[in-house]
């Protein structure tokens, strides 16, 4: 977080221990910061789902690895978009070798599909020293039009 008062985007950072019960708190906080940044209702919902799915994966990975390291979230108010970055210290994501079990869908795959569909420019990478970084953003302000998904401009990177 290198933002200097009045220069560059304001970044609010949140960190919380990997406890599922805190995901609701995280969603509320993301909702507040996004609303204050001028995001519309639909964008706020999309960001809440995306951040909640991302953090749920991190909570699961950390818990399975027996780690209690906090999950960090950066909320970045850009000039015309809102960015989120989630970092955790879990070992690189691996699919549960036992499979989803219980005959149910693999929630992680569903979750990834959701996040990818809801936000722009989804990126994931591993952190030096172990861990994962997931980032994405959404345009802010009123949606002027609602293009079909394949009409969207390509991601910036």
């Amino acid at each position, binding site marked *: 977080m290198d933002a200097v008062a009045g220069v560059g985007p304001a970044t609010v950072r949140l960190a919380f221990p990997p406890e*599922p*019960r805190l*995901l*609701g708190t995280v*969603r509320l906080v993301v909702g507040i910061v996004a609303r204050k940044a001028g995001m519309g209702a*639909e964008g706020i*919902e999309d960001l*809440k*789902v995306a951040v*909640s*799915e991302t953090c*749920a994966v991190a*909570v*699961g990975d950390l818990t399975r690895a027996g780690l209690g390291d906090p999950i960090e979230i950066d909320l970045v108010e850009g000039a015309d978009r809102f960015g989120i970055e989630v970092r955790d210290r879990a070992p690189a994501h691996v699919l549960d070798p036992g499979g*989803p079990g*219980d*005959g*149910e*869908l*693999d*929630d*992680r795959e*569903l*979750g990834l*599909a*959701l996040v990818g*569909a*809801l936000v722009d420019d989804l990126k994931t990478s591993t952190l030096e020293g172990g861990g994962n970084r997931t980032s994405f953003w959404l345009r802010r302000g009123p949606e002027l039009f609602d293009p079909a998904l394949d009409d969207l401009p390509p991601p910036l990177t």
Partner: protein
Amino acid sequence: MDLDLNVSKEGDHSVLEVAGEIDVYTAPKLREQLIELVSDGSYHIVVDLEKVDFLDSTGLGVLVGGLKRVRNHDGSLQLVCTQEKILKIFRITGLTKVFPIHSSVSDAITAPAE
């Protein structure tokens, strides 16, 4: 916990009204309830999502799990949902093709069996 469940009987349907947030934390409670209904012989279930504020992929997985269980008994699992933000989650994941989604409990109950 931010999830309230309420079960009622409507003829041969069991109506499960869900209120609150369905996520990794609360979804196990929903899963238990669905398993209990099926063990008790309720094979036609209507899940009313009108009071659900949030639904994540774990919740979707639990609903799909419930669907599989009732189908083992030639049953049905139908949803009631008119909230755009929740419908969007089903649409994006392609699950609108898997679940019959109705705009009211009575619509769901009177819908012709597939």
